[in-house]
């Protein structure tokens, strides 16, 4: 991505989008062209990629510093990471653990992460899970397993 003007911070957003743009344009170029006058499947991805590259340029030139504060304080990092892990685990166990058990557990973990007491967390988690199950499974025949 060229040589940044000195003392200018590199904008991660501009670089990220430029990279996506280049990938898209390249992928679009690789799609089969139909040999006719009408644009093929690669036309639109290519236009999007080039547009992204073009729109990233002004941001890159502006070189605005982008201080990203992922978490407000160290205290918030733990629940954030724990929630993402809990959700990943939840989705991985989708076919192995019945809906009522896995969802109630997720709800309780979530409330515990937000430092809700054990009893209240269990109560609210189970109640919400049951309500969802009743509404979706009994009411709408949506099968979550």
């Amino acid at each position, binding site marked *: 991505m060229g040589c940044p003007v000195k003392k200018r911070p590199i904008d991660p957003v501009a670089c990220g989008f430029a990279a996506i743009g280049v990938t898209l344009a390249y992928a679009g170029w690789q799609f089969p062209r139909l040999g006719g006058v009408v644009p093929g499947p690669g036309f639109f991805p290519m236009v999007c990629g080039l547009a992204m590259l073009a729109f990233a340029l002004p941001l890159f030139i502006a070189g605005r510093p982008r201080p990203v504060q992922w978490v407000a304080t160290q205290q918030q990092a733990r629940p954030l990471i724990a929630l993402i892990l809990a959700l990943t685990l939840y989705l991985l166990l989708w076919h192995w653990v019945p809906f009522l058990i896995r969802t109630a557990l997720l709800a309780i973990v979530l409330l515990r992460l937000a430092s809700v007491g054990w009893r209240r967390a*269990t109560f609210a988690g189970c109640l919400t899970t049951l309500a969802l199950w009743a509404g979706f499974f009994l009411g709408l025949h949506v*099968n979550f397993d």
Partner: protein
Amino acid sequence: MTLLRQCDADALSRVVLILWLAGQIVLSFGCHSTQSRSYPSKPIRLIVQTVPGGLSDAVSRVMASQLELQLGVPVVCENRPGAAGAVAFLYVVRQRPDGYLLGHGPVEIAMVQALGLAQVGPKDMDLLCLVSMSDPVLAVHSASSWKTFNALVESARTRPGYYIIGNSGTGSIWHINALLLEEATRTQFVHCPFGGSAAAITALLGRHVDAVVAGAGEVAPYVQAGSLRALAVFSAQRSPVLPDVPAVRELGWDFGTPAWSGFYAPKGLPDPVRSRLVGAFKKAFESEAFQRLCRERGMRAVFLGPDEFRVFVDGQTQFFESAIPRLITRAWAVQ
């Protein structure tokens, strides 16, 4: 006050927990005990390959409501749309063949493999029955100068690659039929795919395309209203919903392949279960509700049992496996 609330929450949480555990236990018991009883003893799921609202969905839901009366257990439709139905087919063939999970099988079960969408086909399925067929119809705007099918073919021969036929999507059954028309009459059209037959017909009503190939039931209302003119049914016989429109066979041509609706289960269904299901499907097919649906939506009510359906589907699969690669590459080369 706070203490009181805490106590309440405490007691309630215990009650809820106990109730919930009890529910789990009852559920697991329910699952075990069903296996010993005779089929069917629990709800049956019927997987539909489209979003709610379409023709496949309507056929499935009417059939499901009639099956409920025959089998005495709930039959619940579940929509799993995607990839011309391949998502649903792949899902169904991977389930246990216990008769509690069935699928709605449209013409696409014979097409998705040839279209290269997924490695799944009739060979992975236990076919139960076919219940209806929809004939392809070529329609033009009522203000168009073409009064007959042969007039359209004549015009197309004088101006190859000029007239535009709209269809419901590339690789759809109606697109294949438009390509068959080209091949049989040795003409060349521009094919414009739309997102479904309704959109293609809209474009024809606005005269953005010259003609449309779509299902008889989809075109018939506009023909009856006088806004469209149907020129031919791509079939050996006329369509009941358009009795005045000639079949191509009468005009001296022989091409066209219908859309159809059937039902299937994962491969390996026990014989008693299959015969129970086919019997129920047959009764449901004969019901007034289903026959009325066929009349209203312009389908031919045709019943084929498992063996005849298998023969029919094998023929269709062979046909599409040779026709689709030939026709689609030809269409691409022209565009």
